[in-house]
């Protein structure tokens, strides 16, 4: 098992490496484009261009250029944005990352709880009124646009019924190290908004998996053993359905942390990775874009590695293949 984890981490590292190479090539080695001009942004002066060319070794061979780039990005951490003169890339990302992570982790806890509970209750009550109700709620939640839901929440809490929600601070972010209570208070509605969108999907997927599992022969065996329905549902059916949920979660978590929560961030004024990526795209701020892409890739790769390890943990058949 340990060996498996180590192997999986090594391969994750290799994937990261290849992604960085590809990103590098796309940004800096596209034929016919002057990379210096790209880095320096629109309407840069010739001196700036020369400075950029020297700093990134743009007249040196590709592998060296790649090395320099990574050196600045990862080790020196002094890659600077030329659009917003003097602003370093890495601090921007490390400033934005905790905000996004706070948002996603909190929301993930909520949507997992709600999704699993919803799926379990629906599967346990197949054929009764509560099952279609939950499933309808699920599909409704999935189909709401995040932006709209966020705006409605804001409208209600900050405007229409502000007196009721007077305890709620204005939109924004407070670091957890500053005040955990304020941190949670600021994030509670963003969490609920984002979780609503995902809980519906999870409840539906889990219900489908559970209903399939409940048709399996081993559930019949479990029932013939005289186990309670609850134990059958949780210990046998749910345990075997978790694999699907885990892989779904890995994908969602990775891409959300990588910036896919943009809309929620915008609505609630959270300066997270999504916002950062969006703004840098607007400004064509190449170093920042690259930093964000690398950061996003890192989380997606990490999440999929963790999913694979969890897979092996959850399913002994996967374990023995490796």
């Amino acid at each position: 098992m340990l060996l498996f984890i180590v192997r999986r981490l090594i391969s994750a590292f290799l994937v990261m490496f290849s992604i960085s190479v590809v990103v590098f090539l796309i940004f800096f080695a596209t034929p016919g484009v002057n990379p210096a001009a790209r880095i320096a942004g629109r309407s840069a002066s010739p001196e700036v261009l020369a400075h950029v060319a020297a700093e990134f070794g743009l007249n040196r061979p590709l592998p060296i250029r790649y090395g320099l780039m990574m050196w600045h990005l990862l080790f020196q951490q002094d890659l600077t944005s030329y659009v917003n003169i003097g602003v370093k890339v890495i601090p921007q990302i490390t400033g934005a990352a905790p905000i996004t992570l706070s948002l996603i982790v909190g929301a993930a806890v909520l949507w997992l709880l709600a999704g699993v509970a919803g799926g379990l209750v629906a599967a346990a009550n197949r054929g009764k009124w509560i099952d279609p109700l939950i499933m309808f709620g699920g599909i409704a939640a999935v189909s709401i646009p995040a932006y709209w839901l966020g705006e409605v929440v804001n409208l209600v809490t900050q405007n229409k019924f502000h007196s009721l929600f007077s305890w709620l601070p204005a939109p924004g972010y407070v670091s957890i190290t500053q005040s955990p209570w304020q941190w949670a208070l600021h994030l509670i509605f963003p969490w609920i908004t984002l979780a609503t969108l995902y809980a519906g999907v999870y409840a539906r997927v889990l219900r489908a998996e559970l209903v399939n599992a409940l048709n399996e022969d081993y559930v019949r065996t479990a029932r013939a053993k005289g186990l309670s329905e609850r134990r059958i549902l949780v210990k046998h059916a749910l345990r075997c359905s978790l694999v699907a949920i885990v892989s779904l979660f890995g994908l969602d978590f990775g891409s959300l942390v990588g910036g896919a929560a943009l809309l929620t961030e915008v609505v609630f004024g959270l300066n997270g990775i999504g916002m950062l990526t969006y703004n840098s795209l607007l400004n064509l701020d190449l170093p920042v874009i690259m930093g964000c892409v690398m950061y996003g890739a890192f989380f997606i790769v990490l999440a999929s590695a963790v999913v694979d390890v969890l897979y092996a943990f959850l399913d002994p058949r996967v374990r023995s293949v490796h």
Partner: protein
Amino acid sequence: MSDEVLLRATDVVKSFPIRGGKLGTKKVATAVNGVSLDIFKGETLGIVGESGCGKSTLARCLVQLMPVTSGTVSFKGEVLTGRSRRQLRDTRRDMQLVFQDPYASLNPRRTVGDIVADPMRINKMGTDAVINARVADLFKTVGLDPSYVQRYPHEFSGGQRQRVGIARALSLNPSLVVADEPVSALDVSVQAQVLNLMSDLQDEFGLTYLFIAHDLGVVRHVSDRVGVMYLGQLVELADADALYDEPLHPYTNALLSAVPQLNDGTEVPRERIVLSGDVPDPADRPSGCPFNPRCPSATDQCRTEVPVLLEIRPKRFVACHHPLTF
């Protein structure tokens, strides 16, 4: 049956790593331990042996559903072991497996009609109409009502599921069919139908079968030759009649004596040889002959020296230091 070798296995070994007693110690269970055999074109080779002795594992290794630990398998003169999945694709079509576990091998989310049709669709065997007609045909040949195509596997009885598996295996007109306990879930009359069907198909298409079963009556009926496995090794291999009439290995003899008999007064009661001693464990093989701890006629030689499979008479192979003779 001809002298042309369709599939040849040489010294096939398959072992599984297992969690050892103490932390860190690596142990292996050797499920198949050096099996060499030839399957001739057009014949039916039956394999019998104790539960857990490695029959299914051997079958899976032969059709390359599982990589061998060592040894080689060649099919129609081409070595298969060590090839990639892609290189094996065409050969795979030519070797089909009927599984021991019909349900586990049928996708519960597809209708049985689709399950049978899928291999043909993947291999583009014709238009939808042609394929559907063939599915209906196959259903009839295995004794299923063609109106069942729309149903899902869980709506079937165990025997019916197994017939779906057989229909699927036959759909691509393979030249080798490896059947792992194909009829054990069937009632005797359907079993007879399926066995007759398999032999008809053999006559018609020159099919070759590797046939694994526990019912020794069935094996005798269908097989030209029979191999007896014990603890991952082939201990006896001979023409079916010769093997049943005059078993040479003590294990074969014990096996034959244990067949339950019908009470209808038509059979001569047999004396049952009860095997004493511990059930063999592939992770902890005895030294010498694998059967020696349970063998009534084991000697010191048997406890130290591994007997090899020898052709002691024409077409009679046995791995025993003291073969029985009558």
